[in-house]
């Protein structure tokens, strides 16, 4: 199981700009849920609160009001039931790819023979068995992010939280990674909450898309594409893709900021 639900989550920051105290509403009564095994893309312009929503779900930030639950249990701080994939992978530069994956597992309390074997298994899953002994600076951007995904998946979380994981990659690598993510999802059936600002990406990988603007959820729409999606090139050519993409685009551009 792995169901994430946002219950009226609000998050306010106090921000001092030139001596004046401003209250920024990063999240304003955000409610939506991600069903078990589903991929939900959280999309919106920068500053809309999508990354904050993810951080609250991870437990890195606390909500001012409301709460996030995972399988009905309220989130209080970080936990092994959620695995985070960071925007720039954030691998520990002094550890090899394998050791980076092992780090997460060790924190979960795994020791001995199983530790190494499990880490190797997940590096293999993301196609990096050959490069397991390389340090992060010896890996390309796409490879780093694969290690980041392996590290999060290895602890076998109920939910994978991904913060614009492919945003810093070049276009071609990004497409490869999107296909690989879908492949990994097909095999592991993990629930995934995926933050992105890329329209194509959201439609290609998600089952549902949550559109956010100015700290609010302004639309939730289903992607009528079905699974599996083995060839994203073909998906891109379908009328459903174009239609959904246009609908999300409209939502981002026309939706009123106040309901």
């Amino acid at each position, binding site marked *: 199981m792995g169901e994430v639900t946002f219950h009226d989550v609000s998050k306010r920051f106090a921000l001092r700009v030139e001596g004046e105290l401003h209250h920024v509403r990063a999240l304003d009564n955000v409610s939506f849920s991600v069903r078990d095994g589903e991929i939900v893309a959280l999309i919106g312009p920068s500053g809309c609160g999508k990354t904050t929503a993810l951080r609250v779900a991870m437990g890195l930030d606390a909500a001012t009001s409301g709460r996030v639950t995972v399988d009905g249990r309220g989130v209080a701080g970080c936990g092994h039931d959620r695995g985070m994939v960071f925007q720039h992978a954030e691998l520990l*530069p*002094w550890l090899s790819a394998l050791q980076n994956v092992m780090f997460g597992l060790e*924190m979960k309390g795994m020791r001995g023979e199983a530790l190494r074997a499990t880490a190797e298994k997940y590096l293999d899953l993301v196609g990096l068995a050959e490069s397991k002994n390389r340090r992060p*600076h010896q890996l390309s951007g796409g490879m780093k992010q694969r290690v980041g995904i392996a590290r999060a998946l290895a*602890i076998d979380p109920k939910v994978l939280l991904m913060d614009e994981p492919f945003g810093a990659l070049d276009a071609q690598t990004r497409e490869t990674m999107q296909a690989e993510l879908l492949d990994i999802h097909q095999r592991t059936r993990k629930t995934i909450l995926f933050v992105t600002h890329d329209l194509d990406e959201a439609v290609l990988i998600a089952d549902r898309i949550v559109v956010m603007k100015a700290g609010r959820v302004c639309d939730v729409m289903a992607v009528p594409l079905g699974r599996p999606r083995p060839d994203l090139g073909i998906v891109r050519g379908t009328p459903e893709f174009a239609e959904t993409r246009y609908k999300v685009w409209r939502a981002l551009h026309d939706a009123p900021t106040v309901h």
Partner: protein
Amino acid sequence: MVDIVERQDQSAAQIEAAERRPLPRWVITVISVAFALVLWEIFGRRINPVFGSYPTAIAAAAWELARSGQLADALYQSLRPFAAGYALAIVVGVPLGLFIGGFRTAEAALGIYITAGYAMPLVALVPLLILWLGLGFAVKVAVVFLMALFPICINTWLGVTAVPKTLIEVGKSFVAPDWVILRRIVLPATLPYIMAGVRLAVGRAVVAMVIAEFFTTISGLGAVIINSANNFDTATMFVPIVILMVMAIGLNWLIGVIEHRVAPWQAEIAGRDRE
């Protein structure tokens, strides 16, 4: 295409050799030192030997000191408190810096003493230290320790505050306890800063050692300096000075080697590992 095929046939060593065309660093350093020594020799010889000296005269004086056994004695006397004080400064300074940088309360409560201590006019405090610790080994260790401690501690502290927040969040996301984050993320990320502090402290520890030898029991290399200066034997006076500077260079090199061992990723990231 032909070029590519040939490239593949070349062994990795050959490719590496072809890339290493520029003059090695050590050659440049040797040329620079030789040049400085020659200049010093030429101009030093024109000066009254009381007011200055020159390399060959200093070398002769060094030989004389070494032959009489004085140099070995002095070195032994000097290096013991130096090594003890310097080692103690590392052992105390690094954990203290980690602690102050790692915990907000510790930073607010203790940081101010470290900042002030760095600027402490230690020479003025030596008489007080003598009152507490006497004139012997202990007070010399204390002077070296106090001079070396602060750069090490401050650098470690600064290093901790410079650790990217996201790396710490990686630890938090995987539910690592605070002390595990400190040991497995903050400490390695801070290592380059720690090593820089340890390097800076070498120079200060050497100066502290000589100060201690001047103001407490006159002994070791400091004694050689004072005695020969009192006899207007400038060449001999320069021997310990040169030795101390060479020693500092040697220690710096050694620290560099150690740094490369404990934090190889740093040089690799900066692209310095091929030299």
